[in-house]
């Protein structure tokens, strides 16, 4: 065996001391020199904040506290492990519910106990090889240099290494989809499918249809895929996303329900199911899923006080104040001295006290709520702002409520899902169509600004177009359409202006902002590709 572990930092996460020692001894046989051990999930996370490990061997079952999957989820979410890190989940057996539990956080390997040094060696070696092979491409993707990533991918494909071929084709198709080159993406997936019926290739074809707005075709592909592969969870995720885009919430709920049945451990799916069922008025399903989210949240990085208040709100809806207050009490216990949690609880208490006929208490809570929300300022999430507006309406403070709503509508005018949330909130308190006029006029205003900006841009008056959008951005800071337009103008500007450091920085800042407000990966991919092209050209010219 080659000494592949020398110089590599390795973390063993295992609660059972004898097993930990057995693994450590195996690693020493393989000539490992830097080994850190953790006996539970929290200690594992702490170790990862201090050291950037090359290899993590993490037991799935870690007793009370986080399990191995949750450790991985948190490490990925908090970016505690790099692209190069090999994360191996060690388990007594590889059960379906364990494997299915993962969503975006798949480990590189599952290794079942017991295993010996040779087996461990083979697994690590295979993954090291794969990571090293794809490292260049991953680095370019991380940098946003998609043009280069595609070039590198093509180059490696031409070398025709059979062992890496499928990995590369998959990457190639994903990159093509990301930069909007759907024809290439489709071709690659179809080429793969001719050889073998692989679920991820079929999923890829469905995603391309989705990105092109062919939702019915996408649905047909996802449904057929799930028919043949009922355990392929990403299929459920995409199918439900497509239904959501089409605002078919009943269908969405049904698909999520199936996925949650298969994989009850996934907190994000539970949350999604809870919210969807809640919107659909299926309170029993919503209650069960919110409860699951609260329980799973205990050891998850996706723990959120919003899950508690959503559950409490559900009880408030059915006039079950006792249960609602109990949930809020649990939340305060779980989130000691957390201003957002306190604000959420207080906002809901306004309604609960009012319903109980305690006007004075309701008013006290309203005052407390307003003070807290002022203290939090920009950090109040949009769903909580909506709740605050609701409580203001309920306690006869319509001016306050309007002020909040106007801000929300302006900022989120291109988020149709959230606009529907606003409408639902208003209908819920008998204010049907209350903000419709404002929504429509804001939409018109946005379209007008947009048209004007595009016209200016087409006339070559970039400066004026930019100024216009910048002004609009001060009113609608997170508006996706405006950010995309500003990006387009900046990129165009860069094409004409050589090596303008200032403009380069502005483009980079806008890309960051675009990612923050969650602009669709694919829309951004096209622009990023353009940007990497520009940078490349600039570099070549600088050399010449």
């Amino acid at each position, binding site marked *: 065996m080659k000494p592949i572990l020398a110089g590599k930092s390795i973390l063993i996460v295992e609660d*059972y001391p*004898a*097993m930990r*020692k*057995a*693994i450590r*001894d*195996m690693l020493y*046989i393989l000539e490992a020199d830097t080994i850190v051990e953790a006996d539970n999930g929290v200690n594992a996370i702490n170790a990862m904040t201090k050291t950037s490990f090359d290899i993590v061997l993490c037991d799935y*079952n870690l007793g009370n506290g986080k399990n191995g999957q949750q450790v991985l989820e948190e490490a990925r979410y908090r970016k505690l492990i790099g692209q190069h890190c090999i994360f191996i989940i060690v388990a*007594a*057996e*590889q*059960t*379906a519910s364990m*494997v299915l539990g993962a969503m975006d956080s798949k480990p590189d390997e*599952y290794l*079942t*106990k*017991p*295993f*010996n*040094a*040779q*087996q461990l060696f*083979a697994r690590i070696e*295979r993954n090291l090889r794969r990571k090293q092979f794809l490292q260049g491409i991953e680095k370019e993707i991380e940098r946003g240099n998609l043009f280069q990533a595609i070039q590198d991918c093509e180059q490696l494909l031409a070398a025709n290494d*059979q*062992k890496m*071929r*499928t*990995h590369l084709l998959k990457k190639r198709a994903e990159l093509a989809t990301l930069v909007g080159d759907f024809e290439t993406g489709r071709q690659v997936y179809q080429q793969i499918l001719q050889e*073998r*019926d*692989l679920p991820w290739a079929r999923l890829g074809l469905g995603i391309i249809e989705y990105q092109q707005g062919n939702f019915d075709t996408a649905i047909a592909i996802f449904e057929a895929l799930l028919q043949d592969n009922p*355990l392929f969870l990403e299929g459920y995720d995409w199918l439900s996303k497509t239904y959501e885009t089409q605002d078919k919430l009943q269908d969405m709920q049904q698909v999520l329900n199936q996925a949650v049945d298969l994989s009850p451990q996934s907190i994000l799916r539970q949350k999604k199911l809870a919210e969807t069922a809640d919107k659909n008025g299926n309170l029993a399903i919503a209650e069960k899923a919110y409860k699951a989210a609260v329980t799973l949240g205990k050891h998850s990085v996706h723990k959120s006080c919003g899950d508690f208040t959503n559950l409490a709100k559900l009880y408030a809806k059915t006039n079950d104040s006792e249960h609602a207050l109990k949930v809020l009490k649990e939340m305060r216990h779980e989130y000691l001295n957390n201003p957002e949690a306190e604000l959420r609880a207080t906002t809901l208490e306004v309604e609960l006290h009012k319903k109980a006929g305690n006007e004075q208490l309701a008013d006290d809570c309203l005052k407390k709520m307003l003070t807290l929300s002022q203290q939090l300022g920009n950090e109040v999430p949009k769903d909580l702002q909506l709740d605050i507006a609701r409580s203001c309406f309920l306690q006869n403070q319509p001016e306050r409520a309007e002020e909040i709503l106007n801000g929300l509508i302006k900022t989120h005018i291109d988020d149709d899902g959230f606009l529907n949330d606003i409408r639902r909130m208003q209908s819920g308190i008998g204010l049907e169509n209350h903000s419709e006029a404002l929504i429509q006029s804001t939409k018109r205003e946005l379209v007008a600004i947009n048209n004007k900006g595009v016209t200016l841009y087409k006339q070559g008056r970039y400066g004026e177009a930019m100024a216009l959008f910048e002004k609009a951005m001060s009113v609608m800071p997170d508006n996706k359409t405006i950010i995309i337009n500003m990006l387009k103008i900046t990129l165009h500007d860069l094409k004409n202006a050589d090596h303008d450091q200032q403009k380069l920085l502005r483009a980079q800042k806008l890309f960051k902002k675009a990612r923050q407000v969650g602009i669709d990966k694919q829309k951004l991919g096209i622009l990023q590709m353009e940007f990497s092209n520009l940078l490349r050209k600039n570099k070549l010219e600088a050399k010449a």
Partner: protein
Amino acid sequence: MSGGGVFPTILASTVHDIKNSLGTLLGLIQQLTLSQSADQVDNIRQLEFEANRINHSLMQLLVMYRIDSQKFSLVIDEYPALDLINEAVSQQDGLLQLNRTVVKVECGEDLMCYCDYQQVANALGNIVNNAQRYARNALCISVEKLDGYLKFCIEDDGVGYPEHLLNANLSDPSDLDWVNGNTGLGLYFVAAIAGLHKNRDKSGFVRIDNHSRLGGARFCLFLP
């Protein structure tokens, strides 16, 4: 919870417990192998063999239970066929050394296999384990592409399969002699795992005969 609902939980947690113990046990055995004098090594390897056997039986029990209650599914990905063979041989390494069996591997570096790695490696390990018990001193493991399948062959130089096994339908449990030892349970397990591997209209299967190039039994696993 009903009676039927408790058993799977007990089974799973018991298996988890035993596996932890087995892991520790095997770790200790490996340590002993390194530190003991030559005359003790055979005993230690025997220990390792027994621990491995327990593990295999346990895995089979669990997988068969899951298949039976329709809670089993494969985790399919692409792997080098050579990795699968190496994994299967690694699992049996101590035993192969104990019996001084020479293992020859014929497999191209570039041959790729779509399969559930864990299940197929275990299944192959199972056959290797079996083959070396009956082999005199040599095994040959080979892989080739054949008619849209990947064909794994394990051949030995023993006396060959008994008549009743050669005539049995390996995927039919009632066709196997469960009571009188040498049950072919391992073969039944491998056939079940093979059958779960599908690509378009093809399913995996196993075939056994006594046409080994080494003069004994020949086992073939076909994966689509």
